[in-house]
């Protein structure tokens, strides 16, 4: 019997729900794929049809959290604040929504979101990066950042490096409420916007190419 699309989606959702529960209760490292399958009520082999590894599930949870964060950001007053503040708002809101995922962010950064990951557009890591950077590009255009600079490969790569750096910092930040991360993020966003401002004022020798 063929499994319908809706059944597949429903199974996928059960797996994600199981992961959300067990990663918090038992911790990411201690949770096995067998545990996940049992919680989701499926065979372990079936689990791999949906998610090739635990890290992929972790990334799925992060994608959900990031999407919720972007909804919250979209609901905020779009008119106020400079570009550095807007970028701060985006990343800080994501980090807040990612809090339940903090225990396994490092594992994901080392795999799907690693700078060495293939980053294919439709891979989960590629999707995470693409969705985030699309929002970034929209913000940059709205703020009138010179288009060529704002959407250049260098600018997006620099930003992504800072973003991943802040996430990595946050994953290991043991200060109260991870307040050091807020400071690091404040610094990083100002740094990026300063660079954008100074790069945009020079005769552009940067390729005006958007790289996915």
């Amino acid at each position: 019997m063929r499994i319908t699309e809706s059944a597949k989606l429903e199974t996928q959702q059960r797996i994600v729900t199981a992961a959300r529960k067990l990663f918090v209760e038992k911790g990411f490292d201690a949770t096995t794929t067998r545990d996940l399958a049992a919680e989701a009520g499926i065979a372990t082999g079936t689990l791999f049809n949906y998610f090739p590894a635990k890290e992929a599930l972790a990334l799925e949870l992060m994608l959900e959290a990031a999407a919720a964060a972007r909804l919250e950001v979209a609901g905020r007053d779009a008119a106020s604040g400079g570009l550095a503040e807007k970028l701060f708002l985006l990343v800080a809101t994501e980090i807040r929504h990612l809090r339940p995922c903090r225990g396994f962010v490092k594992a994901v950064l080392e795999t799907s979101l690693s700078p060495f990951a293939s980053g294919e557009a439709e891979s989960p890591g590629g999707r995470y990066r693409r969705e985030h950077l699309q929002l970034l590009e929209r913000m940059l255009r709205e703020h009138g950042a010179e288009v060529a600079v704002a959407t250049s490969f260098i600018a997006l790569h620099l930003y992504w490096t800072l973003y991943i750096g802040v996430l990595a910092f946050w994953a290991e930040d043991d200060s109260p409420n991870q307040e050091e991360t807020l400071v690091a993020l404040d610094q990083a966003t100002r740094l990026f916007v300063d660079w954008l401002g100074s790069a945009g004022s020079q005769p552009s020798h940067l390729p005006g190419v958007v790289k996915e």
Partner: protein
Amino acid sequence: MGLNVSELIEALPADLEPTQSLASDASLQAMLQELAHRPVPVGRFPRLWALGTLQGKIAAAYLAWFLRSSYASAEKKEEALNEAHLKAALKLLGTMGYLRGAIMKLGQVLGAYPDVAPEQFMEVLGRLHFEAPAMHFSLLRENVRNELGDDPEALFADFETEAFAAASLGQVHRARLPESNRAVAVKIQYPNIARTIRQDLENFKTIMFPMRLSGDWDNLREQFTDMVTTLEMETDYEQEAENLRIARLAFAEADEIDVPRVYPERSTRRVLTMDLIEGLHLDDFLATNPSQEVRDRHGRQILLAAMKLSYGSHLLHADPHPGNYLFQRDGRLGYIDFGCCQRYTDQIVAYLEEVEEAMLRSPERLREALIRAGDLTPKQQQDAARLRLMEDWCDWVAEPLRYDGAFDFAADSYLQRGIELYGELVRRRYFRSQPINTWMTRQLLGVRLMLHRLGARVNMKEIHERVSG
């Protein structure tokens, strides 16, 4: 002395990187490694380097000159080690972006007056002012959420997104309490700044103190202790809330002194919500060209405030400056900013009472009282010049207390004498043996300085007799 500022700057270490002589100093190596990797917590990237301006370089060069002159007589190998420590200290100083404003001001003064003595330099150093970078509203929102559990828009009505005033290491916003519509001021500290500064000061001490220095080195060490103490006081808003609570109880309605009430359910160690008091700070108030009567009225209030807190609540407002006072339209005084306060112990109160009694009524007992209050060693007790200076200081303090009628605090001669005596006391560190005396000396001068700027004439004797009972 004839210091040439250009030559000073030339003498700054070129690269501020440690030399090979550090190889044997493992703990220093480890610290520098850690410094190299630690994120700089404050400031915008092009200006993170606090020594990037000419004024910054002047201040750093002066520090280097002073320290070098202190170890000039050391052996060659010690000199090399000291030089390495000096470079490390300057490197760390450069990353202290929260001191950038103060370092620039220091450099400005030194650039204009290069002959200022090292002791004066140290005194200014001891009053260095920390400044946090401004928080945009998105950062502030996350910060408030961490501290109070929800967004400021949810906790307050009409929370203004732009700060209306700077605070020690933070900023102040107007808002309203939703339940009463009462106007409040919400003071919020920049995240993690207190911890960062504390760590930096500890690192600075670790780098500097092994240096084999002579002369005024102890002064620098004490200034550091003062800086740390000030930092602890100014960044603990819970302690400030307690100081405000004590201060509010000290005044009656007739005193015309308004101390803001704190709202503890919306306050933490890093967020302080209190009544908003509207008024002018000193400069703006003076620009309105107030009458002598109004100046005198506010002068009475300022003195009454200081005395009631001291005698009644045993609370010392340790760093009185114009930012603490608001001159209100209805003639009342707003008394705000209780971040820098010290409590008198019972023992200190007893000593102070003894000194005051001697000062005003039994001058033959003054020396003895000062020896006890200052906790002087036998050697110090034999130092006639020291005792003479302390007596002269007390004499200066007591002058308006002995005067029948309104004492004219506008007189330059009185204030000038006080500044000179204070300068001598600091230079010779005569009040360091009992730390509270340092704060009190500052307070006594600070209040009189305020009255001088206000141009007030006040019957201090009458107020003192009324308050001290």
